[in-house]
């Protein structure tokens, strides 16, 4: 299965989207992104965790420590209201951009004329 690099600047949006359903811990988020994209996007921890801290600092997600089965605790992330707003704005912006890019790519090329 071949995986690709994430589109630049979309990681934050993807994390927010993943957390829109339910709070998840780090691996859960990575796994969900991989599964939903059908393995196209694999996020490595080196970019995932800094993104968590960035979003946390910006108040878009907030951490919550939950006990795990083997008597440890895991850090779950949860979307805040601010994060929800941000997700909405970014989703709209992304749709707009995607539509624009698609239009450009569908335009007839010179060779087609």
């Amino acid at each position, binding site marked *: 299965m071949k995986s690709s690099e994430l589109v630049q600047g979309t990681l934050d949006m993807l994390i927010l989207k993943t957390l829109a359903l339910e709070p998840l811990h*780090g691996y859960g988020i*990575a796994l969900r992104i991989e599964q939903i994209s059908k393995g196209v996007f694999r996020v490595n*921890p*080196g970019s995932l965790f800094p993104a968590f801290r960035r979003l946390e*600092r910006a108040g878009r997600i907030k951490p919550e420590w939950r006990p795990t089965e083997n008597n*440890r605790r895991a*850090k779950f992330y949860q979307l805040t209201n601010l994060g929800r707003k941000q997700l909405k704005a970014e989703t709209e912006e992304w749709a707009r951009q995607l539509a624009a890019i698609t239009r450009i790519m569908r335009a007839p090329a010179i060779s087609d004329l």
Partner: protein
Amino acid sequence: MLGLFFALVVKEIAMFRIRSVVAGLRALFRKRQVEREMDEELRDYLDAAAKDKMRSGMSREEATRAARVEMGSVDAVKEEIRSVGWESTLETIWQDLRFGLRVLRRNRGFTAVAALTLALGIGGTVGVFSLLDAVLLRPLPYPHSERLFRLFPLEGKRKRGVEQASYTDFRDWQRQTRTFESLAAYQGESLNLTGTAEPQRLEGSAITPGFFATLGVAPVLGREFRSEDTESVAILSYTLWQRRFGGDAGIIGKPIHLEGRGYTIVGVLPSRVHFRSHPWATPVSDIFVPVVPTPARNWHSVRVLGRLAPGVSKEQALAEMNGIVARLAQAYPESEARGIAFESLAQYVVSDASQTAWLLLGAVAFVLLISCSNVANLLLSQGAAREREMAIRTAVGASRGRILRQLLTESLLLAGSGGAIGVALAYWAIPLVGRIAPPFSSLFSRLQDANLHLNWTVLVFSALLSGLSTILFAALPAWKATRPAQSSLATGRVSRLRGGLIALEVALSLVLLVGAGLMLKSIVRLLEEGVGFRTEHLLTMDVSLSEAKYSTADKQAAYFDELLRRLSLMPEVVSAGATVDLPLTRSETLNTVEIPGTHQMMGTAGYHAVSAGYFRAMGIPLLNGRELGIADSASSPLVGVINRSMAIKYWPTENPVGKTIVVYRYVAEETSAGTRVQFKPHLLEIVGIVGDVRQLGLDVPPDPELFMPYDQWPAQEMSLVLRIAAEPSWLIPRVEKEIWRVDPDQPVTDIKTMDEWVEREAAGRRFILLLIGAFASIAAVLAAVGIYGVASYGMRQRTHEIGVRMALGARRQQIVWLILRQNLSWLVIGIAAGLAGAMALTRLLASYLYSVRPTDPSTFALIMLVQLAIAGLASFIPAHRATKVDPMVALRYE
């Protein structure tokens, strides 16, 4: 809508900031907890990943390993997380600092040499800057001093600017001007303080009413002069009030005796006011009395200063004042002013001191550049030695920017410690500079008044300078050190960068050395200059008689006759004389000389009233005719002795002895309108010719001078000259006692040996020489150290090669030449550039030089040889050491 949006944005930013600030502070101060949470989270991630892999059939070990491999270096991930917050920048800087300190402590030798080198450069620059700050940057102690101007009347067809204006003209200017808020006039006035145990001479100024209001100064006690005041009122400086009256709060209205007359004290000035009637020629005025009006418009006695009205430009004021002067010239033909010129009071007070300060700053900037290039060279050598370290750091993942930052932090530390030592050096050296500043210069006056010391401006400057030098010396080496390592093949060539740096050092120090050489030659030439008399064992002093006590010419002459008689009877005194103007004191009275009966002017001559024994006491030779004698009394015909220059200039083909000329004598009459002064013509017979002396100064060629007996030309103020059999200075108290025996109320001032006057003549140039010489020596030493460093580095790099060559039978000279050669072309380039630079720059010294041209070939040649010798020696020592290399050791070296 838009408003709401902005409110939200602002709120977001604010919230974002606060949260980020809090989280950052938590990361900084609860570091362990934050780190533990991070560890936990990552471990949890690995566990989860491993479990996931086990579910797809891997064994526990395989799954764990695979999860780790996927994550990569845990430390790297942690570093990435940490670098998200603003606090990580702080931490990196802190780390860099600590690491930098460790590196510097490990290389103690390098650190010491580099820090000291920088300390010399930075310290010198800080020292000179504080001089510049005191002289130029500190404002005058008057409010809105940018509106204060000195006014100079322009005279004659050529509109020559003169210092003083006529009092009556000044009064008309004052009445008519609208562009000036106020005008005031002043003149120097030294007064004898009498009626006290030991008579004292006070420096002071005579001023017009409203003078201090014009300056913007209010007395701390009492008031300033008003137009309805009598002539017998006085204002004290703060210092005099403290010194003489112990700061008596009830001083106002009390009497003070000046020149034997009673004055009433009406005011005391604030301590910040240091007013000098002449910015560099007189001490600070301690006493102020009213100007005595003089009605004659051709009698120029007062200096004028004015405060522009707010909002008026200098040009507007100039236009108005020129109009006023033109109208006055039409109305009063005897008024001599034909125009007017302004100079800001600040500029007038600073005068040529700014030129000196900038010159020195330029010179010391060279030293700073040299010290920076020296340290740059040291860092380059270090960089080569640390190549391995850099390679390792790059290998473990440090980015180039990160290493660059580390190196620059080290350099900043170096510059910081160098700067700190430099400031300490400057702190120690600044008072020394204040002490050697030439007296009677605007520089000296400014330094005295500004109270030279380190202040915040100077400290901030030092910090900025340390930063700037870091960029100068560290940027290139750091850039080079972080460049992907080149194969370090010993090519045997000095790299272009290092070569360029030593060429720069050689060039800069050569320029300074040439400057110092030119100054030295000037001073030697100046002191070689014959003054025209014997200066050794000659004691001089000033005696100024008070007008009230010695009101007539007879009384004055009688006093000096008696004084000279008594002094010449002292066993240690060989001969005694008196003159109005001592040579080398830069003062004389110029007046015209005419051919009798024709009203045709021959020219001008300096007029000097002297005693009969003056020439003998001074050791001025009589060339022709006779000296002045006791027979030349007030009642006998006027006679005079001229100097050789006057004889040659006005009687090139004849013998002037026995000729008669017309001279002008100053007569002052008290009238109801004030003192009326005029010059009246008299016939005078020339009876002798004496040798030339340097009347105005060592560096001023002799001009025509005319000497006349003081019995015929009464003088109230005279300088005594005593030729002493032994060392003159220890005789001073006895001479004073002898003078007070004639009149116990008579102050004696300015007691000096003639050698001191000669010294003072050279003081201005010596000051420049001392400082430029000091800078040049430091520069030369630093450059030598730099050359030595590069040469020994080159030698170390080639130890192996030298070993091979020697094993193959190379001779010692060949080895020496091998090492010498690598620097040689750079040294030659440096010397050539230095000579060109000196050619271009020594013009700036021109006004300080004496009978030496700024491009004096012999100085240039000599300094070039000196520099070549220094550079040669500095490269020869390592070259010589290279020949001591044991081939066996050298071959095993790698």
